[in-house]
Protein backbone atom coordinates (compact mmCIF):
# COMPACT_ATOMS: atom_id res chain seq x y z
CA UNK A 1 0.00 0.00 0.00
CA UNK A 2 3.06 2.21 0.04
CA UNK A 3 2.50 3.71 -3.41
CA UNK A 4 -0.67 5.34 -2.10
CA UNK A 5 1.34 7.52 0.24
CA UNK A 6 3.10 8.99 -2.75
CA UNK A 7 -0.23 10.12 -4.15
CA UNK A 8 -1.51 11.72 -0.99
CA UNK A 9 -0.21 12.13 2.56
CA UNK A 10 -0.84 9.05 4.75
CA UNK A 11 -2.91 10.98 7.30
CA UNK A 12 -5.39 12.08 4.69
CA UNK A 13 -5.70 8.63 3.21
CA UNK A 14 -6.27 7.20 6.66
CA UNK A 15 -8.87 9.77 7.49
CA UNK A 16 -10.69 9.14 4.25
CA UNK A 17 -10.84 5.40 4.85
CA UNK A 18 -11.96 5.86 8.41
CA UNK A 19 -14.50 8.49 7.39
CA UNK A 20 -15.89 6.03 4.87
CA UNK A 21 -16.30 3.30 7.47
CA UNK A 22 -18.11 5.79 9.67
CA UNK A 23 -20.30 6.79 6.76
CA UNK A 24 -21.28 3.16 6.23
CA UNK A 25 -23.05 2.83 9.55
CA UNK A 26 -24.61 6.26 9.20
CA UNK A 27 -25.78 5.38 5.68
CA UNK A 28 -27.31 2.05 6.66
CA UNK A 29 -29.31 3.58 9.48
CA UNK A 30 -30.21 6.74 7.53
CA UNK A 31 -31.31 4.77 4.47
CA UNK A 32 -33.83 2.90 6.57
CA UNK A 33 -35.05 6.17 8.02
CA UNK A 34 -35.37 7.84 4.65
CA UNK A 35 -37.25 4.87 3.18
CA UNK A 36 -39.82 5.03 5.95
CA UNK A 37 -40.01 8.80 5.64
CA UNK A 38 -40.30 8.73 1.88
CA UNK A 39 -42.84 5.97 1.38
CA UNK A 40 -44.86 6.05 4.60
CA UNK A 41 -44.38 9.78 5.33
CA UNK A 42 -43.62 8.82 8.94
CA UNK A 43 -40.72 10.55 10.71
CA UNK A 44 -39.61 7.53 12.69
CA UNK A 45 -38.01 8.81 15.87
CA UNK A 46 -38.02 5.27 17.21
CA UNK A 47 -35.44 4.43 14.53
CA UNK A 48 -32.63 5.11 17.00
CA UNK A 49 -34.23 2.79 19.53
CA UNK A 50 -34.41 0.03 16.92
CA UNK A 51 -30.73 0.56 16.15
CA UNK A 52 -30.02 0.17 19.87
CA UNK A 53 -32.18 -2.96 20.06
CA UNK A 54 -30.26 -4.34 17.09
CA UNK A 55 -27.01 -3.89 19.00
CA UNK A 56 -28.38 -5.49 22.16
CA UNK A 57 -29.86 -8.43 20.28
CA UNK A 58 -26.53 -8.87 18.53
CA UNK A 59 -24.96 -9.06 21.97
CA UNK A 60 -27.52 -11.62 23.09
CA UNK A 61 -27.15 -13.78 20.00
CA UNK A 62 -23.39 -13.62 20.08
CA UNK A 63 -23.37 -14.69 23.72
CA UNK A 64 -25.79 -17.53 23.01
CA UNK A 65 -23.47 -18.91 20.37
CA UNK A 66 -20.49 -18.55 22.67
CA UNK A 67 -18.93 -15.49 21.10
CA UNK A 68 -16.11 -15.62 18.60
CA UNK A 69 -16.58 -16.15 14.89
CA UNK A 70 -19.87 -18.06 14.94
CA UNK A 71 -21.31 -15.70 17.49
CA UNK A 72 -20.45 -12.65 15.44
CA UNK A 73 -21.83 -13.82 12.10
CA UNK A 74 -25.00 -15.24 13.64
CA UNK A 75 -25.51 -11.94 15.43
CA UNK A 76 -25.03 -9.85 12.31
CA UNK A 77 -27.45 -12.02 10.34
CA UNK A 78 -30.12 -12.67 12.95
CA UNK A 79 -30.33 -9.33 14.75
CA UNK A 80 -31.71 -7.34 11.77
CA UNK A 81 -34.42 -9.94 11.20
CA UNK A 82 -35.37 -9.86 14.86
CA UNK A 83 -35.64 -6.08 14.73
CA UNK A 84 -37.69 -6.25 11.53
CA UNK A 85 -40.05 -8.68 13.24
CA UNK A 86 -40.48 -6.42 16.25
CA UNK A 87 -41.14 -3.45 14.01
CA UNK A 88 -43.68 -5.39 11.98
CA UNK A 89 -45.60 -6.20 15.13
CA UNK A 90 -45.59 -2.56 16.17
CA UNK A 91 -46.59 -1.39 12.73
CA UNK A 92 -49.51 -3.74 12.31
CA UNK A 93 -50.62 -3.23 15.88
CA UNK A 94 -50.38 0.53 16.15
CA UNK A 95 -49.29 2.46 13.12
CA UNK A 96 -51.43 0.82 10.47
CA UNK A 97 -54.57 2.60 11.63
CA UNK A 98 -52.97 5.99 11.83
CA UNK A 99 -51.35 6.77 8.49
CA UNK A 100 -53.95 9.34 7.65
CA UNK A 101 -52.98 11.46 10.63
CA UNK A 102 -50.92 14.58 10.37
CA UNK A 103 -47.14 14.28 10.22
CA UNK A 104 -46.79 15.99 13.55
CA UNK A 105 -48.94 13.41 15.27
CA UNK A 106 -47.02 10.56 13.64
CA UNK A 107 -43.78 12.14 14.79
CA UNK A 108 -45.06 12.21 18.35
CA UNK A 109 -46.35 8.68 18.06
CA UNK A 110 -42.91 7.42 17.09
CA UNK A 111 -41.46 9.56 19.88
CA UNK A 112 -43.67 7.88 22.47
CA UNK A 113 -42.65 4.55 20.98
CA UNK A 114 -39.01 5.53 21.41
CA UNK A 115 -39.66 6.33 25.09
CA UNK A 116 -41.32 2.96 25.60
CA UNK A 117 -38.66 0.97 23.74
CA UNK A 118 -35.89 2.73 25.64
CA UNK A 119 -37.26 1.62 28.98
CA UNK A 120 -38.06 -1.87 27.68
CA UNK A 121 -34.43 -2.35 26.67
CA UNK A 122 -33.43 -1.37 30.20
CA UNK A 123 -35.89 -3.87 31.65
CA UNK A 124 -34.60 -6.71 29.50
CA UNK A 125 -30.87 -6.09 29.46
CA UNK A 126 -30.21 -3.85 32.47
CA UNK A 127 -27.76 -1.00 32.65
CA UNK A 128 -24.38 -2.68 32.31
CA UNK A 129 -22.11 -2.01 29.37
CA UNK A 130 -22.09 -4.81 26.82
CA UNK A 131 -19.82 -5.76 24.00
CA UNK A 132 -19.69 -8.19 21.09
CA UNK A 133 -16.57 -10.12 20.24
CA UNK A 134 -15.05 -9.96 16.79
CA UNK A 135 -13.87 -13.01 14.87
CA UNK A 136 -10.11 -13.36 15.02
CA UNK A 137 -9.51 -12.27 11.45
CA UNK A 138 -11.21 -8.95 12.06
CA UNK A 139 -9.23 -8.06 15.11
CA UNK A 140 -6.34 -5.67 15.02
CA UNK A 141 -5.07 -3.19 12.47
CA UNK A 142 -3.57 -3.26 9.02
CA UNK A 143 -0.87 -0.75 8.27
CA UNK A 144 -2.00 1.52 5.46
CA UNK A 145 0.80 3.82 4.45
CA UNK A 146 2.44 3.44 7.88
CA UNK A 147 -0.69 4.26 9.89
CA UNK A 148 -2.87 1.54 11.39
CA UNK A 149 -6.42 1.05 10.16
CA UNK A 150 -8.51 -1.51 12.00
CA UNK A 151 -9.41 -4.38 9.68
CA UNK A 152 -13.02 -4.26 10.78
CA UNK A 153 -13.30 -0.67 9.60
CA UNK A 154 -12.12 -1.76 6.16
CA UNK A 155 -14.75 -4.48 6.24
CA UNK A 156 -17.35 -1.80 6.91
CA UNK A 157 -16.09 0.27 3.99
CA UNK A 158 -16.90 -2.70 1.75
CA UNK A 159 -20.26 -3.43 3.38
CA UNK A 160 -21.57 0.09 2.80
CA UNK A 161 -21.59 0.03 -1.02
CA UNK A 162 -22.82 -3.57 -0.90
CA UNK A 163 -25.89 -2.50 1.04
CA UNK A 164 -26.39 0.46 -1.28
CA UNK A 165 -26.25 -1.87 -4.26
CA UNK A 166 -28.66 -4.26 -2.60
CA UNK A 167 -31.12 -1.46 -1.94
CA UNK A 168 -30.85 -0.20 -5.50
CA UNK A 169 -31.54 -3.67 -6.85
CA UNK A 170 -34.46 -4.01 -4.48
CA UNK A 171 -35.93 -0.67 -5.48
CA UNK A 172 -35.48 -0.98 -9.22
CA UNK A 173 -35.45 -4.64 -10.09
CA UNK A 174 -38.05 -6.14 -7.84
CA UNK A 175 -41.82 -5.82 -8.01
CA UNK A 176 -42.14 -4.69 -4.43
CA UNK A 177 -39.48 -2.08 -5.05
CA UNK A 178 -41.27 -0.55 -7.98
CA UNK A 179 -44.59 -0.57 -6.17
CA UNK A 180 -43.03 1.12 -3.16
CA UNK A 181 -41.54 3.84 -5.29
CA UNK A 182 -44.94 4.43 -6.82
CA UNK A 183 -46.60 4.47 -3.42
CA UNK A 184 -44.09 7.03 -2.21
CA UNK A 185 -45.23 9.43 -4.86
CA UNK A 186 -48.95 8.69 -5.01
CA UNK A 187 -50.41 6.20 -2.59
CA UNK A 188 -53.97 6.79 -3.69
CA UNK A 189 -53.24 5.89 -7.24
CA UNK A 190 -51.47 2.72 -6.17
CA UNK A 191 -54.49 1.79 -4.10
CA UNK A 192 -56.75 2.57 -7.02
CA UNK A 193 -55.04 0.04 -9.25
CA UNK A 194 -55.88 -2.66 -6.75
CA UNK A 195 -52.67 -3.06 -4.78
CA UNK A 196 -52.99 -3.45 -1.04
CA UNK A 197 -51.22 -0.27 0.02
CA UNK A 198 -51.34 -1.29 3.67
CA UNK A 199 -49.16 -4.34 3.05
CA UNK A 200 -46.77 -2.29 0.94
CA UNK A 201 -46.33 0.04 3.88
CA UNK A 202 -45.78 -2.88 6.24
CA UNK A 203 -43.07 -4.30 4.01
CA UNK A 204 -41.27 -1.01 3.56
CA UNK A 205 -41.45 -0.30 7.28
CA UNK A 206 -40.01 -3.73 8.03
CA UNK A 207 -37.19 -3.20 5.56
CA UNK A 208 -36.40 0.22 6.99
CA UNK A 209 -36.25 -1.15 10.50
CA UNK A 210 -34.25 -4.15 9.28
CA UNK A 211 -31.64 -1.63 8.17
CA UNK A 212 -31.69 0.08 11.56
CA UNK A 213 -31.13 -3.27 13.24
CA UNK A 214 -28.35 -4.09 10.79
CA UNK A 215 -26.63 -0.82 11.62
CA UNK A 216 -26.82 -1.62 15.29
CA UNK A 217 -25.54 -5.16 14.80
CA UNK A 218 -22.62 -4.06 12.61
CA UNK A 219 -21.57 -1.39 15.05
CA UNK A 220 -21.86 -3.63 18.12
CA UNK A 221 -18.28 -4.99 18.18
CA UNK A 222 -16.60 -1.61 17.94
CA UNK A 223 -18.81 0.39 20.20
CA UNK A 224 -19.91 0.34 23.83
CA UNK A 225 -23.39 -1.16 23.76
CA UNK A 226 -25.25 0.93 26.28
CA UNK A 227 -28.60 2.51 27.07
CA UNK A 228 -28.82 5.91 25.49
CA UNK A 229 -27.11 5.02 22.22
CA UNK A 230 -30.45 5.65 20.56
CA UNK A 231 -30.28 9.35 21.39
CA UNK A 232 -26.87 10.02 19.92
CA UNK A 233 -27.60 8.45 16.58
CA UNK A 234 -31.14 9.58 15.82
CA UNK A 235 -30.24 13.25 15.50
CA UNK A 236 -27.40 12.53 13.07
CA UNK A 237 -29.56 10.17 11.04
CA UNK A 238 -32.30 12.78 10.69
CA UNK A 239 -29.86 15.47 9.65
CA UNK A 240 -28.42 13.17 6.99
CA UNK A 241 -31.87 12.36 5.69
CA UNK A 242 -32.75 16.03 5.49
CA UNK A 243 -29.64 17.09 3.66
CA UNK A 244 -29.87 14.13 1.33
CA UNK A 245 -33.45 14.71 0.36
CA UNK A 246 -36.44 13.08 2.04
CA UNK A 247 -37.05 9.56 0.81
CA UNK A 248 -33.98 9.49 -1.40
CA UNK A 249 -31.70 6.55 -0.61
CA UNK A 250 -28.86 7.89 -2.75
CA UNK A 251 -29.35 11.15 -0.88
CA UNK A 252 -28.85 9.25 2.35
CA UNK A 253 -25.61 7.87 0.96
CA UNK A 254 -24.45 11.31 -0.08
CA UNK A 255 -25.44 12.80 3.24
CA UNK A 256 -23.67 10.05 5.16
CA UNK A 257 -20.53 10.55 3.11
CA UNK A 258 -20.59 14.28 3.73
CA UNK A 259 -21.16 13.77 7.43
CA UNK A 260 -18.52 11.07 7.85
CA UNK A 261 -15.85 12.70 5.73
CA UNK A 262 -16.27 16.28 7.00
CA UNK A 263 -15.79 14.96 10.47
CA UNK A 264 -12.76 12.79 9.85
CA UNK A 265 -11.02 15.35 7.65
CA UNK A 266 -12.07 18.25 9.84
CA UNK A 267 -10.24 16.63 12.71
CA UNK A 268 -6.97 16.96 10.82
CA UNK A 269 -7.46 20.65 10.28
CA UNK A 270 -8.81 21.68 13.65
CA UNK A 271 -8.77 18.84 16.19
CA UNK A 272 -9.90 21.03 19.05
CA UNK A 273 -13.26 21.78 17.52
CA UNK A 274 -13.93 18.55 15.67
CA UNK A 275 -17.57 18.71 16.81
CA UNK A 276 -18.33 21.68 14.66
CA UNK A 277 -17.62 20.39 11.15
CA UNK A 278 -20.51 18.04 10.35
CA UNK A 279 -23.04 20.50 11.82
CA UNK A 280 -21.52 23.38 9.90
CA UNK A 281 -21.80 21.28 6.74
CA UNK A 282 -25.47 20.57 7.48
CA UNK A 283 -26.33 24.21 8.11
CA UNK A 284 -24.52 25.20 4.90
CA UNK A 285 -26.41 22.67 2.81
CA UNK A 286 -29.75 23.65 4.32
CA UNK A 287 -29.24 27.32 3.72
CA UNK A 288 -28.48 26.85 0.05
CA UNK A 289 -30.57 23.77 -0.75
CA UNK A 290 -33.27 23.60 1.92
CA UNK A 291 -35.06 20.69 0.33
CA UNK A 292 -31.94 18.58 0.32
CA UNK A 293 -29.21 17.86 -2.16
CA UNK A 294 -31.06 15.27 -4.18
CA UNK A 295 -34.68 15.07 -5.22
CA UNK A 296 -37.08 14.21 -2.42
CA UNK A 297 -40.21 12.15 -2.83
CA UNK A 298 -42.39 14.66 -1.00
Amino acid at each position, binding site marked *: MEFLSSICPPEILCQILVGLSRATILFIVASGLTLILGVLRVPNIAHGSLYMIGAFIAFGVSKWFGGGTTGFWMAVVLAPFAVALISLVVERGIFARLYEREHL*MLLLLTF*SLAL*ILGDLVKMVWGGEYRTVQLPGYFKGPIPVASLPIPIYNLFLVVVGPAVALGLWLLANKTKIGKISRAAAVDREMVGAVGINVSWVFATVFAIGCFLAGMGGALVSPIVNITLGMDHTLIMEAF*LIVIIGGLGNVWGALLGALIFGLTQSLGILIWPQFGIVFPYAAVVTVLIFRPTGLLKST*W
Partner: protein
Amino acid sequence: MIKNIHGKESWLVPILFVLLLIFPLVLTRFYIYLLALIFVSGLPAMSLNLVLGYGGIYQFHHAAFYGVGAYGAALTITKLGCSPWIGFLVGPLLAALLSLIMGAICVRLSKLYFGMLQISLGSLVWAIVYRWYSFTGGDDGIHGVLMPDLIASTTGSYYFTLLVTTACLVAMYVIVKSPFGSALQGIRDNPVRSEAVGVNVKLHQLVALVVAGFFAGVAGVLFVVVDNSVFPDMLFWTLSLEILIMCLLGGCLTFLGPMLGAAMMVALRTFASTFTEYWTLIQGIILMLVIIFLPEGVLGYVNAKFKQLGDATSGGKT
Protein backbone atom coordinates in the same frame (compact mmCIF):
# COMPACT_ATOMS: atom_id res chain seq x y z
CA MET B 1 -60.94 25.58 13.08
CA ILE B 2 -60.47 27.39 16.32
CA LYS B 3 -63.00 26.56 18.93
CA ASN B 4 -64.34 29.43 20.95
CA ILE B 5 -62.44 29.06 24.17
CA HIS B 6 -64.75 27.78 26.81
CA GLY B 7 -67.71 29.77 25.55
CA LYS B 8 -70.32 29.12 28.18
CA GLU B 9 -67.63 27.92 30.57
CA SER B 10 -65.62 31.12 30.49
CA TRP B 11 -66.59 31.82 34.10
CA LEU B 12 -64.34 28.92 35.05
CA VAL B 13 -61.22 30.91 34.32
CA PRO B 14 -61.55 33.70 36.92
CA ILE B 15 -62.54 31.11 39.53
CA LEU B 16 -59.43 29.14 38.74
CA PHE B 17 -57.35 32.27 39.12
CA VAL B 18 -58.79 33.04 42.53
CA LEU B 19 -58.17 29.46 43.61
CA LEU B 20 -54.57 29.72 42.49
CA LEU B 21 -54.18 32.90 44.52
CA ILE B 22 -55.29 31.29 47.75
CA PHE B 23 -53.65 27.88 47.27
CA PRO B 24 -50.41 28.82 49.10
CA LEU B 25 -52.46 29.34 52.24
CA VAL B 26 -53.54 25.72 52.32
CA LEU B 27 -50.94 23.72 50.44
CA THR B 28 -47.57 22.53 51.66
CA ARG B 29 -44.41 24.06 50.23
CA PHE B 30 -43.90 21.21 47.84
CA TYR B 31 -47.22 21.65 46.06
CA ILE B 32 -46.67 25.39 45.84
CA TYR B 33 -43.34 24.67 44.17
CA LEU B 34 -44.99 22.12 41.88
CA LEU B 35 -47.62 24.61 40.73
CA ALA B 36 -44.95 27.19 40.05
CA LEU B 37 -43.07 24.58 38.03
CA ILE B 38 -46.20 23.83 36.03
CA PHE B 39 -46.55 27.49 35.10
CA VAL B 40 -42.89 27.66 34.13
CA SER B 41 -43.30 24.57 31.94
CA GLY B 42 -46.65 25.63 30.57
CA LEU B 43 -45.70 29.09 29.43
CA PRO B 44 -43.23 27.87 26.76
CA ALA B 45 -45.90 25.43 25.58
CA MET B 46 -48.44 28.25 25.38
CA SER B 47 -46.04 30.46 23.47
CA LEU B 48 -45.21 27.59 21.14
CA ASN B 49 -48.88 27.18 20.44
CA LEU B 50 -49.02 30.78 19.26
CA VAL B 51 -46.95 29.84 16.24
CA LEU B 52 -47.73 26.15 16.01
CA GLY B 53 -51.45 25.85 16.69
CA TYR B 54 -52.53 29.28 15.57
CA GLY B 55 -49.83 29.86 12.97
CA GLY B 56 -49.22 26.41 11.60
CA ILE B 57 -45.46 26.92 11.72
CA TYR B 58 -43.34 23.88 12.52
CA GLN B 59 -41.41 25.41 15.38
CA PHE B 60 -39.19 22.46 16.29
CA HIS B 61 -36.67 24.16 18.49
CA HIS B 62 -38.70 26.42 20.74
CA ALA B 63 -36.50 25.49 23.69
CA ALA B 64 -33.73 27.60 22.20
CA PHE B 65 -35.62 30.79 23.12
CA TYR B 66 -36.60 29.45 26.52
CA GLY B 67 -32.99 28.61 27.26
CA VAL B 68 -31.63 31.89 25.94
CA GLY B 69 -34.10 33.78 28.10
CA ALA B 70 -32.94 31.83 31.15
CA TYR B 71 -29.24 32.17 30.38
CA GLY B 72 -29.66 35.84 29.51
CA ALA B 73 -31.12 36.52 32.92
CA ALA B 74 -28.69 34.30 34.83
CA LEU B 75 -25.59 35.66 33.11
CA THR B 76 -26.71 39.27 33.53
CA ILE B 77 -27.14 38.70 37.24
CA THR B 78 -24.06 36.62 37.93
CA LYS B 79 -21.47 37.76 35.42
CA LEU B 80 -22.43 41.39 35.00
CA GLY B 81 -23.55 41.81 38.58
CA CYS B 82 -26.70 43.66 37.60
CA SER B 83 -29.87 43.76 39.63
CA PRO B 84 -32.11 40.76 39.04
CA TRP B 85 -34.90 43.01 37.72
CA ILE B 86 -32.63 44.04 34.89
CA GLY B 87 -31.83 40.40 34.28
CA PHE B 88 -35.56 39.71 34.02
CA LEU B 89 -35.78 42.19 31.18
CA VAL B 90 -32.61 41.16 29.37
CA GLY B 91 -33.63 37.51 29.15
CA PRO B 92 -36.81 37.85 27.10
CA LEU B 93 -35.34 40.62 24.97
CA LEU B 94 -32.41 38.41 24.04
CA ALA B 95 -34.80 35.58 23.30
CA ALA B 96 -36.84 37.85 21.06
CA LEU B 97 -33.69 38.98 19.29
CA LEU B 98 -32.59 35.41 18.67
CA SER B 99 -36.08 34.62 17.43
CA LEU B 100 -35.85 37.51 15.00
CA ILE B 101 -32.48 36.36 13.65
CA MET B 102 -33.38 32.72 13.39
CA GLY B 103 -36.80 33.55 12.06
CA ALA B 104 -35.37 35.74 9.34
CA ILE B 105 -33.15 32.88 8.20
CA CYS B 106 -35.76 30.15 8.40
CA VAL B 107 -39.00 31.85 7.41
CA ARG B 108 -38.30 31.43 3.71
CA LEU B 109 -38.91 27.73 4.18
CA SER B 110 -42.08 25.94 5.06
CA LYS B 111 -43.21 23.09 7.24
CA LEU B 112 -40.69 20.35 7.93
CA TYR B 113 -37.75 22.18 6.36
CA PHE B 114 -38.35 25.21 8.55
CA GLY B 115 -38.32 22.92 11.54
CA MET B 116 -35.12 21.13 10.61
CA LEU B 117 -33.18 24.29 9.82
CA GLN B 118 -34.35 25.74 13.11
CA ILE B 119 -33.11 22.62 14.93
CA SER B 120 -29.72 22.93 13.27
CA LEU B 121 -29.37 26.61 14.16
CA GLY B 122 -30.71 26.09 17.65
CA SER B 123 -28.24 23.26 18.16
CA LEU B 124 -25.48 25.64 17.18
CA VAL B 125 -26.58 27.97 19.99
CA TRP B 126 -26.62 25.01 22.36
CA ALA B 127 -23.13 23.97 21.29
CA ILE B 128 -21.79 27.48 21.94
CA VAL B 129 -23.30 27.64 25.43
CA TYR B 130 -22.14 24.09 26.20
CA ARG B 131 -18.57 24.65 25.08
CA TRP B 132 -18.00 28.17 26.46
CA TYR B 133 -17.72 27.05 30.07
CA SER B 134 -15.57 29.93 31.22
CA PHE B 135 -18.54 32.20 30.54
CA THR B 136 -21.61 30.01 30.75
CA GLY B 137 -20.42 27.30 33.11
CA GLY B 138 -20.63 24.75 30.31
CA ASP B 139 -22.43 21.53 31.10
CA ASP B 140 -22.22 22.29 34.81
CA GLY B 141 -24.62 25.17 34.36
CA ILE B 142 -24.94 28.15 36.66
CA HIS B 143 -26.28 27.83 40.19
CA GLY B 144 -27.29 29.85 43.17
CA VAL B 145 -28.48 32.80 41.12
CA LEU B 146 -29.51 35.46 43.63
CA MET B 147 -33.08 36.64 43.68
CA PRO B 148 -34.59 39.72 45.29
CA ASP B 149 -35.79 38.85 48.81
CA LEU B 150 -39.39 39.55 47.87
CA ILE B 151 -39.54 36.63 45.49
CA ALA B 152 -36.80 34.38 46.81
CA SER B 153 -38.96 32.14 48.97
CA THR B 154 -41.09 29.31 47.65
CA THR B 155 -44.31 31.28 48.15
CA GLY B 156 -42.79 34.48 46.85
CA SER B 157 -41.54 32.86 43.66
CA TYR B 158 -44.95 31.20 43.24
CA TYR B 159 -46.86 34.47 43.32
CA PHE B 160 -44.38 36.15 41.02
CA THR B 161 -44.65 33.27 38.56
CA LEU B 162 -48.45 33.22 38.79
CA LEU B 163 -48.75 36.94 38.14
CA VAL B 164 -46.27 37.02 35.27
CA THR B 165 -47.75 33.93 33.65
CA THR B 166 -51.28 35.32 33.92
CA ALA B 167 -50.16 38.59 32.41
CA CYS B 168 -48.52 36.74 29.52
CA LEU B 169 -51.58 34.59 28.96
CA VAL B 170 -53.83 37.62 28.87
CA ALA B 171 -51.48 39.25 26.39
CA MET B 172 -51.46 36.11 24.25
CA TYR B 173 -55.23 35.90 24.33
CA VAL B 174 -55.53 39.49 23.19
CA ILE B 175 -53.08 38.83 20.35
CA VAL B 176 -54.92 35.72 19.25
CA LYS B 177 -58.27 37.50 19.18
CA SER B 178 -56.89 40.54 17.38
CA PRO B 179 -56.92 41.06 13.62
CA PHE B 180 -53.30 40.00 13.62
CA GLY B 181 -54.27 36.71 15.20
CA SER B 182 -57.01 36.14 12.66
CA ALA B 183 -54.63 36.89 9.82
CA LEU B 184 -52.18 34.37 11.30
CA GLN B 185 -54.80 31.66 11.41
CA GLY B 186 -55.78 32.52 7.88
CA ILE B 187 -52.18 32.04 6.83
CA ARG B 188 -52.13 28.70 8.60
CA ASP B 189 -55.21 27.48 6.80
CA ASN B 190 -54.44 28.85 3.37
CA PRO B 191 -51.22 30.76 2.79
CA VAL B 192 -51.81 31.22 -0.91
CA ARG B 193 -55.18 32.85 -0.48
CA SER B 194 -53.90 35.04 2.33
CA GLU B 195 -51.14 36.30 0.10
CA ALA B 196 -53.69 36.92 -2.59
CA VAL B 197 -55.83 39.14 -0.37
CA GLY B 198 -52.81 41.26 0.46
CA VAL B 199 -51.54 39.79 3.70
CA ASN B 200 -47.75 39.82 3.94
CA VAL B 201 -47.35 36.18 4.92
CA LYS B 202 -43.68 36.20 5.79
CA LEU B 203 -43.92 39.37 7.84
CA HIS B 204 -46.84 38.08 9.85
CA GLN B 205 -45.03 34.85 10.54
CA LEU B 206 -41.87 36.66 11.55
CA VAL B 207 -43.75 38.88 13.99
CA ALA B 208 -45.49 35.84 15.46
CA LEU B 209 -42.14 34.12 15.88
CA VAL B 210 -40.62 37.07 17.68
CA VAL B 211 -43.61 37.37 20.01
CA ALA B 212 -43.54 33.64 20.75
CA GLY B 213 -39.80 33.82 21.33
CA PHE B 214 -40.26 36.70 23.75
CA PHE B 215 -42.79 34.80 25.85
CA ALA B 216 -40.60 31.72 25.81
CA GLY B 217 -37.80 33.89 27.13
CA VAL B 218 -40.07 35.11 29.92
CA ALA B 219 -40.68 31.47 30.84
CA GLY B 220 -36.93 30.91 30.96
CA VAL B 221 -36.58 33.82 33.37
CA LEU B 222 -39.32 32.35 35.56
CA PHE B 223 -37.40 29.09 35.71
CA VAL B 224 -34.42 30.97 37.09
CA VAL B 225 -36.68 32.62 39.66
CA VAL B 226 -38.10 29.30 40.82
CA ASP B 227 -35.00 27.09 40.62
CA ASN B 228 -32.13 29.62 40.74
CA SER B 229 -30.17 27.63 38.17
CA VAL B 230 -29.68 27.24 34.43
CA PHE B 231 -28.49 24.21 32.54
CA PRO B 232 -27.49 23.76 28.89
CA ASP B 233 -30.17 21.07 28.68
CA MET B 234 -32.65 23.92 28.53
CA LEU B 235 -31.43 24.63 24.99
CA PHE B 236 -31.37 21.03 23.82
CA TRP B 237 -33.73 19.77 21.14
CA THR B 238 -35.19 17.05 23.38
CA LEU B 239 -36.72 19.77 25.54
CA SER B 240 -38.24 21.29 22.40
CA LEU B 241 -39.82 17.94 21.70
CA GLU B 242 -41.21 17.81 25.25
CA ILE B 243 -42.71 21.27 24.88
CA LEU B 244 -44.27 20.15 21.61
CA ILE B 245 -45.73 17.14 23.36
CA MET B 246 -47.27 19.30 26.07
CA CYS B 247 -48.98 21.30 23.35
CA LEU B 248 -50.36 18.29 21.61
CA LEU B 249 -51.24 16.42 24.78
CA GLY B 250 -53.39 19.25 25.99
CA GLY B 251 -54.71 20.12 22.56
CA CYS B 252 -53.13 22.65 20.25
CA LEU B 253 -56.40 23.86 18.86
CA THR B 254 -57.60 25.18 22.20
CA PHE B 255 -56.21 28.19 23.98
CA LEU B 256 -55.38 26.70 27.38
CA GLY B 257 -54.65 23.21 26.09
CA PRO B 258 -50.85 23.49 26.27
CA MET B 259 -50.99 24.60 29.90
CA LEU B 260 -53.07 21.54 30.73
CA GLY B 261 -50.62 19.40 28.81
CA ALA B 262 -47.75 20.86 30.83
CA ALA B 263 -49.62 20.19 34.07
CA MET B 264 -50.16 16.59 33.04
CA MET B 265 -46.52 16.02 32.07
CA VAL B 266 -45.12 17.57 35.25
CA ALA B 267 -47.60 15.77 37.50
CA LEU B 268 -46.97 12.49 35.72
CA ARG B 269 -43.25 12.81 36.01
CA THR B 270 -43.34 13.83 39.65
CA PHE B 271 -45.72 11.19 40.87
CA ALA B 272 -44.84 8.30 38.61
CA SER B 273 -41.21 8.65 39.62
CA THR B 274 -42.09 8.01 43.25
CA PHE B 275 -43.27 4.57 42.23
CA THR B 276 -40.96 3.37 39.56
CA GLU B 277 -37.77 4.18 37.75
CA TYR B 278 -39.53 3.35 34.50
CA TRP B 279 -41.51 6.55 34.49
CA THR B 280 -40.53 7.32 30.88
CA LEU B 281 -42.26 4.10 29.92
CA ILE B 282 -45.43 5.29 31.61
CA GLN B 283 -45.08 8.67 29.98
CA GLY B 284 -44.67 7.02 26.59
CA ILE B 285 -47.69 4.78 27.06
CA ILE B 286 -49.97 7.59 28.18
CA LEU B 287 -48.77 9.77 25.35
CA MET B 288 -49.41 7.03 22.84
CA LEU B 289 -52.90 6.45 24.21
CA VAL B 290 -53.75 10.12 23.97
CA ILE B 291 -52.42 10.36 20.42
CA ILE B 292 -54.38 7.35 19.29
CA PHE B 293 -57.67 8.02 21.04
CA LEU B 294 -57.71 11.76 21.63
CA PRO B 295 -56.21 13.35 18.54
CA GLU B 296 -57.49 16.74 19.61
CA GLY B 297 -55.66 16.52 22.88
CA VAL B 298 -57.22 16.26 26.30
CA LEU B 299 -58.70 19.74 26.42
CA GLY B 300 -59.93 19.40 22.89
CA TYR B 301 -61.76 16.27 23.90
CA VAL B 302 -63.19 17.93 27.00
CA ASN B 303 -64.36 20.90 24.94
CA ALA B 304 -66.05 18.60 22.48
CA LYS B 305 -67.82 16.84 25.33
CA PHE B 306 -68.99 20.15 26.80
CA LYS B 307 -70.21 21.19 23.41
CA GLN B 308 -72.15 17.96 23.07
CA LEU B 309 -73.67 18.47 26.48
CA GLY B 310 -74.49 22.04 25.62
CA ASP B 311 -76.21 21.01 22.40
CA ALA B 312 -78.14 18.28 24.17
CA THR B 313 -79.43 20.61 26.89
CA SER B 314 -80.37 23.28 24.42
CA GLY B 315 -82.57 20.83 22.58
CA GLY B 316 -80.24 19.45 19.98
CA LYS B 317 -79.49 22.70 18.19
CA THR B 318 -76.19 22.53 16.33
